[in-house]
Every structure is written in C-alpha cells, then in structure tokens.
C-alpha cells in the first residue's frame, strides 16, 4: 500500500483539538496562517441535536444514565474514557497509571469540570520554594498577560481575593452558593479552612454575541448547546473558522508520527484515517503537537528516523519522563441538618461548585511539600441510575433498621434527598524522572501504532497529602454536624489516594527548560532538537500545581502561538 501524500503545504499542522490545539488554531488562524487540524476522533459540535445529551432525562435511555459505555455516566460528553476500544496501553510490572482519552473534536474540553485556576507565582518556582522538583524557566509574570487575555476571551467566573498564590483575574461574577455549600462554608471556617467563590469557565454573564449565557442546568459535563461553557470546538475552533480563518479539520485521523527531512527538520505528519484504515501524509512548515501530554510523547517517541534515532526531540532521553497527575482523595458525609428538604426550587446551578477552598496550609510544618484545593459537591441532583439503590441506608445512623419494603421507601427517599455533602481534594504531586511513559514495542493499537507503556508510582509525599485530605474532610464533616460515610481509608490503602491518572490532569512528559540536556522544549515550547516542532498541551509543564491544568494550557498555548507567528515572520523557522 502506498502512503497517500497531499501536495498542499500548510503553514501549520496542529495535532489534537482540545484546549491546547484549540487555542493554537484560534491564534494561528486569526494571524492569517493556513492551518490543518488533525483530530483522532469524529467531528463534534455541542449544539448538534443528534449527539447532544444536555437536558436528556434518565428515562430516555434503557439504562437510565448508567456508566456502562461511558465511565462518568452515559450523558457525559466524552467519546472514550480510561479505556478506548482498540487502543490499549500497558504497564511496567507493579506500577499503575490510568490514561483517559477523549476521541472527538474539542477532546476532553467537552466534558471537563471547567475549574479554571491560574497557577500562582510560587507554582512556577517549586525547587526554589522547597527543594523538590524543578523551577520553570518562566515565571508568573511571563504568563500573567496571557491568563488575562484567556479570561477575557473565554470567560471565567470568580472573584478577586488578593491571594498571593491564587492570583486575581478578569472574572465574571460568581453564582450564589447552594444550600449544602453554605453548610460547607460554615464547616470549613470552623477549621480555619478558607472558602471563596469557585472559579469556573461558564458564562454567568454575556461576553460576546456568539455565545449564550448560562441557564443553570448543572450539566457542563454534557457540553453546552448554547456555548455558555468553554469547549475548544465551540469557543476557539468554530470562531476561528467563522472569522474567515483558513482552518481545515481532518477528523478520524490518528497521527502516527512527525515526518522529517534529511536535515532532521519536520516536514509534516503521517496519520491513519480511521475511515479507510490507510496511511496519509500532510505537509507543513510547522508542526504543533497538542494531542495531550502522553499522546504527544507517544508521537515523538514513534517518530524515529536516521536523524532522530531515539525519537523526535528526544536527544535528552526525557520524552515521556516526569509524567505526573494531580493527587486526589474524596470523602462524603451525611448531614442530618440537610434532611427533609423542600423541593420547591431548582438548585442545579452551574455544572460544578459555586464555592471552593484554595490551599491554605504551611507545608514547612507538614510531612508533604505541596498543597491541594478542595472541591465541593452535593445538592438535590437530577436522578439517574444509582439513585436510591440503598434508599434508607442512613437509617443506621438513627438506630433504625435498614432495608424493608413498601410505601415507607418513598418517605425514606425524600427524607434523605440532598443530605450528602461531598469533598474532593486535588493536589500537587512532585514531578519525578522515575515516573514515565515509553513505547511498548510488543504491542500496537488497531492502527498498527506502537502503544504506550506506563511506569508510575506515588511516593510518600503524595500519600501523606492524601491522609491530610481525609483528616481535613472528617473535621469539616463533623463541623457540619455530619457523619463521614464509609470507612476512613487506611495506610494500606494509601489513605484513599486515587490511582495515578484518575484525576485526568497528567502533565510533564515533554518538560520545558533552558538546558537541552535536562528538558525537551525551550520556554516557548519549541523542541530543543527541531526548531519547527512545538508542543502546546500539558507536556511542557515542569510541574503541576495544586490547580487544574487547563487554564495554564490555554495561556501557554497562546504564548507559544505568538512566538510561532513572530518566528515565521522573522523567517527563523
């Protein structure tokens, strides 16, 4: 079979259409460049009634919303989760990593929690701060102008609180707290845990005429049909096309490798079309990888040539190394004061928390070096599969029998509806060279592309942090007059620390730095080894903060795009 090669030479090929790829598409196309976006999944537009799940009721499906086909429930707008059919990954013995992939235009931005936190000044200088990990080659002052622009372009609600490491921004006003959130605020304050309005990229107020305003259905994970939440397709790629940009989108196209010439410079990409299972080539002056931290590392490692025998950009042998996910631990409590609620009103709110706790601790006095924030959940939710599976379980807290049958079950369901408050800690892990992904030469996916093998272990720092999370959760639950549910996880259970990859914030596989021996890209996310290849997903992150990574991906992708435009103008690449 001959590889089919297109004669058109694009200015830029962007691999992946999520946060990083979407932002690069918007900036590069707006600058007049001819852009090809190559996406492994199908086309997706949140407003297409055929794929839309927003406002669907449980009873519209025979499985009532259960998560058989989609890990976060069948309304969740992600095609693919930790398992993608025909696209396996493997593990080094005794290690764990769960790798989420969303195969669709817009990628994971279609279903994510929209928690949009800037990194703070301390987050870019970890090593200076406590000796662990490394400093970034850039600081908050380098990224701040881009965070500001992202806030205004995409929209995020929140408040300026003047906090040192949780910087102010250009926020839309937040929604008022829900009932359980008022309980959380009171409970947290008793333990001196600060609580401030949430920071999420949903439009509580109009920002332009192209996007709708939030109508509070609480379903951002289903992707908003009026574009009132941020998804890369609806907020970046479609607007880039609408304003006349030259954007050609190749969907169902799984990139295999970056192609190079005799000088070792990138010439484009080769990809497998999922429609006919044939290999194609596209040519461009610049290749931008935005396939997600691990997918971009995989593409680089699979791009071996005479000039790049160790994979593209991998002379440092660091591609795939320093992989790290956020830490996570969760706990819920039953709060008797939230029983017997009036159902007179709709409290769906935005698709996520209206309040949260940024990190408050002093790590110099703790047995782990980095912080975490607390996300809050609860309320009178939309019933889906799982609702009432053990309808009167909480009877046990009142010395009443659990189980039975009959009309009383209706009363039990209503009595306990909305009486649970959940907390999720999401924290910073230390980036370690020993945690990595590499190519597993023994296994290929259904497109014949060698797959990733993961090698990842938590250290005591992350485990101790999870213990601290659970201690805090229990204290806050008690402060709310509540009872923690389930047993507190033990040391043997790593204190309930989620497996690596489960928080879906993986970063670090192509980290940036000034020294080509200890980093993969420079501070503009350009490969040290090949000047016309850039990486704009979370791969170049030197460290994850106790923040979610998307807002920083967006800011850095914009920054890298400005640099690409500048370098092309100067004819440096």
């Amino acid at each position, binding site marked *: 079979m001959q590889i089919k090669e297109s004669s058109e030479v694009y200015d830029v090929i962007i691999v992946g259409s999520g946060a990083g790829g979407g932002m690069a598409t918007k900036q590069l196309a707006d600058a007049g460049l001819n852009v090809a976006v190559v996406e492994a999944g*199908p086309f997706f537009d949140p407003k297409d009634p055929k794929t839309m799940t927003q406002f669907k009721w449980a009873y519209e499906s025979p499985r009532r919303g259960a998560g058989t086909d989609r890990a976060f429930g069948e309304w969740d707008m992600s095609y693919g989760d930790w398992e993608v059919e025909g696209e396996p990954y493997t593990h080094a013995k005794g290690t764990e990593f769960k790798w989420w992939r969303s195969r669709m235009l817009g990628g994971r931005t279609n279903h994510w929690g929209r928690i949009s936190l800037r990194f703070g000044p301390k987050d870019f200088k970890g090593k200076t701060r406590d000796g662990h990990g490394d400093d970034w080659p850039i600081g908050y002052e380098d990224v701040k102008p881009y965070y500001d622009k992202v806030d205004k372009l995409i929209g995020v609600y929140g408040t300026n609180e003047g906090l040192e490491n949780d910087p102010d921004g250009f926020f839309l006003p937040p929604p008022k707290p829900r009932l359980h959130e008022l309980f959380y605020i009171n409970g947290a304050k008793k333990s001196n845990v600060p609580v401030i309005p949430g920071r999420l990229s949903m439009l509580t107020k109009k920002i332009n005429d192209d996007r709708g305003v939030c109508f509070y259905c609480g379903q951002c994970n289903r992707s908003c049909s009026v574009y009132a939440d941020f998804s890369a397709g609806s907020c970046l790629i479609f607007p880039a096309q609408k304003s006349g940009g030259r954007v050609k989108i190749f969907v169902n196209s799984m990139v295999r490798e970056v192609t190079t010439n005799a000088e070792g410079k990138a010439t484009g990409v080769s990809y497998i079309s999922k429609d006919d299972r044939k290999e194609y080539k596209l040519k461009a002056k610049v290749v931008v990888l935005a396939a997600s931290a691990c997918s971009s590392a995989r593409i680089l490692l699979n791009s071996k040539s005479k000039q790049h025998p160790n994979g593209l950009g991998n002379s440092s042998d660091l591609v795939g190394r320093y992989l790290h996910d956020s830490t996570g631990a969760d706990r819920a409590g039953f709060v008797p004061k939230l029983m017997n609620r009036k159902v007179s009103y709709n409290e769906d709110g935005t698709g996520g928390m209206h309040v949260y706790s940024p990190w408050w601790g002093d790590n110099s006095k703790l047995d782990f070096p980095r912080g975490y924030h607390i996300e809050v959940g609860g309320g009178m939710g939309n019933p889906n599969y799982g609702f009432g599976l053990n309808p009167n379980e909480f009877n046990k807290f009142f010395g009443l029998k659990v189980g039975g*049958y009959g009309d009383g079950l209706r009363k039990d369901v209503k009595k306990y509806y909305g009486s649970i408050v959940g907390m999720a800690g999401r924290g910073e892990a230390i980036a370690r060279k020993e945690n990595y992904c590499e190519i597993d030469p023994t296994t290929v996916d259904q497109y014949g592309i060698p797959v990733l093998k993961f090698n990842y272990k938590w250290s005591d720092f992350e485990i101790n942090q999870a213990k601290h999370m659970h201690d805090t959760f229990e204290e806050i639950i008690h402060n709310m007059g509540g009872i923690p549910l389930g047993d507190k996880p033990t040391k043997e259970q790593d204190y309930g620390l989620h497996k690596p990859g489960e928080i879906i914030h993986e970063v670090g596989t192509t980290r940036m730095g000034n020294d080509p021996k200890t980093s993969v890209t420079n501070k503009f996310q350009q490969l040290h080894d090949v000047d016309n290849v850039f990486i704009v997903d979370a791969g170049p992150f030197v460290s994850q903060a106790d923040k979610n990574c998307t807002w920083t991906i967006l800011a850095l992708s914009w920054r890298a795009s400005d640099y690409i435009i500048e370098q092309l103008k100067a004819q440096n690449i």
Partner: protein
Amino acid sequence: MDRRKSLQTLILGGAAAGTGMAFNSCTTKESAETITENIAESSEHYFGRTPAELERIEKLNAEQLFTEHDMETIEALSVVILPPKEPHGGPIEAGVPEFIEFIAKDMPYMAPTLVGGLMWLDHKSNTDYGTEFKSATLAQKKEICDQICWHDTEVPLSEQPLEIQFFFMMRGLTVTGYYTSKVGIADLGYKGNQPNVWDGVPQDVLDQHGVAYDPEWIAKCIDQSTRNTIATWDDKGNLLT
C-alpha cells in the same frame, strides 16, 4: 456490602461489559437485520448515542434474559416493594421490569443473582403455599418478603444468603428504576433539568435549615438583571458592567 462498595461493583461490572469481555451475544442473521432497522428508526430519538453505542443497545434489546414468567414475577415483586400510589403510579408505570431486564443484560454480573433469586422465590412460595410467587396472595407475598428484606448491615452483603442479596438488588433496582422515570421524578418533586436563572436559595429554605447568606459574599455574586449585558473590565480586573 455497603452502598459505596456496591456502587463500585456496579461500576466495575459496567466496565467489564464495556470491554466486551462479558458480552454474550446470540444474534442470528435475522435479528441482525432487526437491529439495523431499529437503529435507523431510533436515530430520531438518539439520546446522544454514538452509532456504536446505539448498536450495542439494540443488540442487548434483541437478547432475551428473562422468560415471560420471570418478567411477571419481577412485576409482581416490584409492586410489593414499591406499591403504586396516586397520582404518580408505581413500578409498572415507571417501566421498572423492562429496566431491570435491560440492566441485567447490560451489567451481566447481576444476572445470576436475579435469575437465581427469582427461582428461589417460586421455590419458597411453592413450598409454603403450593403456588408460584406471582400467583400468591398479597399477604403470602409479604410473608416471604418479610423473611428476606432485612440484611445485616455489619456483614458484607456478598457473605449473606443469596435470597437476601437478591432482595437487596431488586429493591435497589426498583427504587432507582422508579425514581429515574417520569412518574418517579414527579413523585420526588425534582425541579431541575431545564433552563432557569439561579439566584440563590429561597429565604424559607435558608430559615428551615438555620443558615443565612453573608451579605459581603452575596455582594460579589452575579446580579441576574445584568446577565445579558456584555462584560467589560477596567485594567485591574474590576467589572464595569
């Protein structure tokens, strides 16, 4: 098994089915055609499924797990568990038996407990009353249920007798099936899943639960009368509109 554990099992069960490991299709050529037809017909009310997901649903629909008698027994038991009540009906109006049949195929790890439990129910009813469960009187049905409807909360459910596990599963599926249905959601009184404008918890609800809004906090929140005015800021990030 506690609720968290049982949910985990449900999720794990779901994952196993999703990878096709436990998928046991007995599709014939004829039913394959029916499946294709059904997909074409239901694409209008697609509920957001991908073609592959829809195909899997139609394949499950084409399979039969329970016999007609089983389904009648499930119906009979479900209305004992959650008797119908005006004006929002009960398990039959909520489609609970069909839901249970689908779920037992969708999450095949549940099937042995359900199929075996139904057999146990008839055996018990035959032994005690000389009739199958579905034909027993309400009083007889209740006498049987009374013996299996309480589980020991201190012992993992998986270590308790099959009939106890069966009843626990049937009660859970009946309640979740009812409250995820149109009539059940009406009975619950849930007011969401529709566009609206959130402007905080009503005062009577705050009073009922003994909490109050902090005026300083509320001052920072969205004034909903300005939601359709385009946002502009000064250089410091103060909202001007």
